[in-house]
C-alpha cells in the first residue's frame, strides 16, 4: 500500500511546537519541582539552578506512600493477569456455552462508574474488615485491570493458529497444558501490554484510595498528593516533586514500551 508522501522540515517544526504546547503542563511540573522552596511562586521559567530539596522533602514525606502504591499496583497487576489470562483463553479458544454473555458483561463493566462500585463496596468492606487494607485496595483497583486485560488478551489469543493447538492436542496435551505451553507463550506481547496497563490503572487510582481508606494505614501516592495539596499548599516544590515521582511509571512506560502503549489504547477502544 502506498503511503502519504513524506513532507519536509516545516512539518517537523510545527509538530514540535504543537507537542511543546501540549506537554507544557508536564514541563511546568518538572520545572516547579526543581525550584527552591518558596521561590516557586515567583515562577522562574527555567530551572537554571536546579534545587533538589523538593525531592528530599517529597521522599521524606511521601516515601511510604510511593511504596504502598508500588505494592498495590504490583498486586493488582498479578491479580488482573491471573484472572484475565485463563478467561481470555476460554473466551477466545474454548468458547464454552455462555461465553458470549460473559463477553457482553465485560464490555458493560466499562460503563459502570467507579463511584457506584465504591459506594457498595464500602459497606461490604466494612463488614469484611477490608477497609484500610492492601488486599482490599488491590481487589478494588483490579476492577480496571481485569476487564481490560481480558479484552486485550482475548483478541490476541484469537490470533493463535488453530493448527498449532490441534497439533498439541493430538500429542496428548490437555487444555491446561495447551494454555500454559502454547497459548501463553504466543501471547507474550498482549500479556506485557495488559500487565503494563493494569499496573498503571492501579497506580493511578484515586477514587478507591479515597473512599476505601479511613485511616493512614494504607495510603497510596495519589492520596498522598491530594492531602499534600490541602495541607502544604505553600510547599509547591515538594508537591510537584511528588507529582513527578508519581508520573514516573507513565513516563517510563512511554519510553520503554511505546508499542504496547499504542496497542493498549487502540484495542481498548475498538474491541
Amino acid at each position, binding site marked *: 500500500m502506498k*503511503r502519504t508522501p*513524506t*513532507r*519536509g522540515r516545516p512539518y*517537523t517544526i510545527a509538530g*514540535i511546537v504543537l*507537542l511543546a504546547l501540549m*506537554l507544557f*503542563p508536564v514541563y*511546568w*511540573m518538572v520545572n516547579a519541582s526543581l525550584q527552591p522552596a518558596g521561590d516557586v511562586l515567583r*515562577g522562574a521559567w527555567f530551572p537554571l539552578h536546579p534545587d533538589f530539596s523538593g525531592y528530599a522533602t517529597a521522599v521524606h514525606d511521601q516515601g511510604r506512600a510511593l511504596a504502598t502504591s508500588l505494592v498495590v499496583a504490583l498486586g493488582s497487576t498479578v491479580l488482573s493477569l491471573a484472572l*484475565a489470562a485463563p*478467561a481470555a483463553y*476460554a*473466551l477466545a479458544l*474454548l*468458547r*464454552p456455552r*455462555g461465553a458470549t454473555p460473559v*463477553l457482553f*458483561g*465485560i464490555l*458493560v*463493566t466499562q460503563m*459502570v*462508574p*467507579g*463511584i*457506584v*462500585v465504591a459506594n*457498595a*463496596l*464500602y*459497606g461490604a468492606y466494612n463488614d469484611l474488615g477490608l477497609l484500610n487494607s492492601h488486599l482490599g485496595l488491590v481487589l*478494588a483497583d*483490579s476492577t480496571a485491570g*481485569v476487564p481490560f486485560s*481480558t479484552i486485550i488478551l482475548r483478541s490476541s489469543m484469537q490470533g493463535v493458529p488453530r493448527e498449532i493447538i490441534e497439533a498439541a492436542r493430538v500429542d496428548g496435551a490437555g487444555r491446561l497444558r495447551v*494454555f500454559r505451553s502454547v497459548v501463553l507463550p504466543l501471547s507474550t506481547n498482549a500479556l506485557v501490554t495488559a500487565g503494563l496497563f493494569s499496573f*498503571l490503572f492501579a497506580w*493511578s487510582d*484515586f*477514587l478507591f484510595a479515597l*473512599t476505601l481508606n479511613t485511616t493512614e494505614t494504607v495510603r497510596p501516592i*495519589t492520596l498522598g498528593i*491530594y492531602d499534600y495539596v490541602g495541607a502544604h499548599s505553600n510547599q509547591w516544590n515538594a*508537591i*510537584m516533586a511528588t507529582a513527578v515521582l*508519581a508520573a514516573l511509571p*507513565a513516563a517510563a*512506560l*512511554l519510553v520503554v514500551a*511505546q508499542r504496547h*502503549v*499504542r496497542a493498549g*489504547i487502540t484495542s481498548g*477502544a*475498538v*474491541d
Partner: protein
Amino acid sequence: MKDGAEDKAAPGRGRAAVRARLWEPIARWMFLAPAVAYLLLFFGYPIVENIVMSFQQYTTTTFYTGAAPFVGLRNYTGILSSDLFARALPTTVLFTAGSLAGQFVLGLALALFFHRRFPLGRVLRSLLLLPWLLPLVVSATTWRWMLDTDTGVVNHTLRGLHLLSSGVPWLTGTSQALASVTVVNIWVGIPFNTAILYGGLQDIPAHLYEAAKLDGAGPLTSFRRITWPLLRPVAGVVLVLGVVYTLKVLDIILIVTGGGPADATETIATRSYELSFQQFEFGRGAALGNVLVVISLLFAVVHLRANRRALEAGSTGP
C-alpha cells in the same frame, strides 16, 4: 465451534465417553470461572447492592445497628427534586459536551496533522500520549497550580503579555471554574482521541485520495467526501467512549476545584461521592449513582451496538 463437533464425533462410547462429555463443558468453564466470579463480586454485587441501598435509609448508623429501613422512592424523589440536582445536571451536560467537543475537534486536528509523514512524526506522536497516561491526580494538581489566580503561570503569562492587568479567577470565579475543569479534561482526553482517530485515518486506503486528486478534488473536498464518511464509525466509538468516561470523571473536579466555588463545578458524579462519603447518606448517594448509571447505559447501548459490529468483523477476519 470446532470443539462442538469433537463432542459429537464420539456418540456414547461407554461410560468414559459419557463422563468425558459431561466433564467437557465444566473443564472449559474452569478457565472462565475465576474471572467471572471476580466480575460478579466487584461489578454485579455493587450494581445490585446500589439498587437495594437506593431504596433504603442507609446512613452511618446502618454500620452500627445494621438497620436500613425501606423508604421506597424517597431517596430518588428527594434527590431529583433537590436544588443540588437541578444545578448538577446542567453542569454535567456542559462539562460533558464541552469536553467532548474540545477533545474531538483538537484530537482530530492533531490526528490529521500527524497523518502526514514527516521526520520525527512517529516520536512526536508517541510523546503526545503522555497526558493520557499520567495519573489524573498528577495532571489535576499541576493544572490547579497553573491556574491559580495570583501565582499561576497562566495569569502570569497573560499579565506579562499585557493582555490583562488583573488575574482571571480561573478556579474561584463561578463562571470560569467550569470552563477551567473542562479545559483540564479536554487536555487529558486529546491524546486518546488523537490515537484512535489516527488509527482510523490509517485504515483509509490511500488510493482513494489519489483518485480524488486526479479528479481535481481539493483537500477540503477530499476531507468531506472521503475522510469524514470513512472515519465516521471510529468517530462514533470515540465519542461514545468519551461520554461514558467524562460522566464518570471525579478526580479532576475534586482536585482542581473541589466542586466549588459555590457548587459551580458539582456534577452528578461529584454529588454522588459527597452524599455517600462526606454526608454519609449512602442511600441517597446510591440513588444518584444509579441515575448516572442509567444515563451511561443509554450511551452504552449505542456503544455496544457499534462494538458488536466491530467484534463480528474481528471474528470473521483471519
